[in-house]
């Protein structure tokens, strides 16, 4: 299934934050983590993110499941960067024939892995707690994005889970016609391409029908739209943005004070 289980209830504190405010906070924290090239700044940011989780109303188990792939990815980043660093600096920790890992390279690799962790964790906290409809509402109301694009994308998103079901139907129908990938990679690739073609033909037809139905309900008219549900920036939303900026600044300041800070060049 393409739909993901929500990581929090609809009335949890974080779900009630304006989506655009969350978007801004995520952007501030992630950008800070990506600009700082040392290991201390992202580590402090990660600690700050972890400290906020208990106050958001997020279910920890669901969040853990959603983040599980991240630890694997971050670990891989650390190893690859430590192994393939341009030169192994510092004290050599490990030496296996041609493979050497020095403390300098390991520290650099860890820093990169931590930055990936911060950006991804902030993203999951921000987006997994946001209803797509609320996001579209806030984008059109606060950021004045064009309705044609934003609502169009929202409508397309609603049709996405259908594609999974249709893929299975087409594959079944192919078997009925005597087509099966089996172990032959060439045959598998050709079958994949032809299944994808059939899926796309159906998706394009469906998109055309959806567009006509939306136009028939006045979507393309010149009249400015009103909004059934107003999204507002409340005081708390501004506090969230300010807090994320303050925490980011504090992390950088602490890192500079301790002498470890380097900027990404």
């Amino acid at each position, binding site marked *: 299934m393409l739909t993901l289980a929500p990581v929090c209830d609809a009335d949890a504190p974080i779900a009630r934050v304006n989506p655009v405010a969350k978007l801004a906070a995520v952007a501030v924290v992630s950008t800070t983590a990506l600009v700082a090239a040392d290991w201390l700044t992202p580590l402090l940011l990660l600690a700050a993110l972890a400290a906020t989780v208990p106050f958001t109303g997020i279910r920890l188990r669901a969040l853990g499941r959603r983040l599980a792939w991240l630890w694997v990815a971050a670990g891989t980043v650390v190893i690859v960067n430590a192994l393939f660093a341009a030169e192994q600096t510092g004290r050599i920790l490990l030496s296996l024939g041609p493979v050497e890992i020095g403390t300098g390279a390991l520290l650099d690799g860890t820093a990169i892995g931590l930055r990936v962790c911060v950006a991804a964790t902030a993203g999951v906290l921000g987006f997994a707690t946001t209803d797509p409809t609320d996001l579209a509402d806030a984008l059109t109301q606060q950021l004045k994005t064009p309705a044609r694009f934003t609502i169009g994308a929202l409508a397309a998103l609603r049709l996405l889970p259908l594609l999974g079901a249709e893929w299975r139907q087409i594959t079944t*129908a192919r078997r*009925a016609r005597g087509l099966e990938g089996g172990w032959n990679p060439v045959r598998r690739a050709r079958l994949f391409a032809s299944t994808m073609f059939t899926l796309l033909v159906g998706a394009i037809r469906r998109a055309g029908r959806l567009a006509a139905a939306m136009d*028939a*309900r*006045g979507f393309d008219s010149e009249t400015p739209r009103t909004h059934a549900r107003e999204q507002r920036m409340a005081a708390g939303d501004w506090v969230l943005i300010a807090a994320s900026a303050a925490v980011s600044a504090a992390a950088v300041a602490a890192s500079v004070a301790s002498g470890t800070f380097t900027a990404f060049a």
Partner: protein
Amino acid sequence: MIAVEFRGFAWRHAGRRARAVAGVDLRVEPGERVLLLGPSGSGKSTLLAALAGLLTGDSGEQDGEVLLDGKPAAEQRARVGVLFQDPETQLVMARSGDDVAFGLENQAAPPGEIHSRVLAALEAVGFPYGPDRPTHALSGGEQQRLALAGVLARRPDLILLDEPTANLDPEGAQEVREALRRSLADSRATMVVVEHRVADVLDLVDRVIALGPGGTLLADGPAAAVLAAHGDALAAQGVWVPGAPLPVRPAGPAGEVALRGEHLSLAHPGADRPALDDVSFALRRGELVAVTGPNGSGKSTLALLAGGLAKPTGGAAAVPGEARPLHRLPARRLAARVGSVFQDPEHQFVTATVRDELAFGPRQAGWPADRTAARVAELLERLRLAPLAEANPHTLSGGEARRLSVAGALAAAPEVLILDEPTFGQDRRTWGELVDLTADIRDEGTALLAVTHDRDFAAALAGRELVLRGGRLAEEEGR
């Protein structure tokens, strides 16, 4: 209420040589309720799209005028509401209430008013849930009623219905008809409906307009009078005229067993009950067995298991002469023994021309070239697809695509053919063709299993009926 007028209206779709509609003159008075009839290709859908103001300059070429209260339809779009065929592609939002609100937001309705108008519209169509109900959790009939609420909430002066129940199962169609009946009785809007199942909408309309090919006017008047005078001609064109006789094609004696299902069960992990639970049956050559039952009773699951297309969690389906059960046969071998025809014909098309589509099965089965060519020529002739032999299957009309999908599955002459809702959404003419085609296949000695909601289809062809309820075989009826 709004007056509708076509004045010498003609339309040619961009890229087509022939006109979809060639010169229509028509007037519908304010508040009238009109049924528009005609064979496929008579331009009914084009006329509806013109009324909805959905024909734009870049999609084709227009002559004449389409006027709503004397103004071009394209300028009056805010006063028109359309209910389309396909429920899935009419809903825009993830929550039911938001979806109804969508049309009101586009109309710039005052935000304070929207909520109450949404609730009133949901009430009017008998929507059984609250406004927060996710739209993906609705059945087809419920989705279609929600789409109707979206139309009504905008308080249109002209309501257009484009075969509103064609994509629904009988229960869903009944719900939507009820909702239409109730909400139209409360509305003073002018209405135009396109529908070939006349009996379904007869009590909603007071006038019938019948079109011929190209949109020529065949008949116009009160429903009873038009149907009495032109019933036969309309039936021949594909309209389901109430009371018109339907063919019956009884089978001869059945032959030996061609497929056997033994204790077939399929339980999806996490489901509270199996989709299919311990169903056994035998299918003989020269007979058609209908599989019937309400939604969710396991009919489609049975078709998949009988076709060797899903792995049962218990029991097995097998054909004589194969040591392995069907679901373990390699696809190529399976296709030569058991053919399956799905609801959506396009899912089955695997080549770029009608001719290759028919040759595909025999080639897979390793037939020599001359035998394949002879078989393809025979099928093209029999199914009246010869003029379309080089056409791309994806460009065929609904009826043609369905005939081709049946022909493709039986080209390599399997002894067994499994059909899933073969007559779903077809007009009377295509229906008749499918009944004849199916009867011929059966009488040549093929064993057929047909999952169907269509009582008439079962009555015309089936020797026996397997009735499923809640995944179990509730009864087996001989006819």
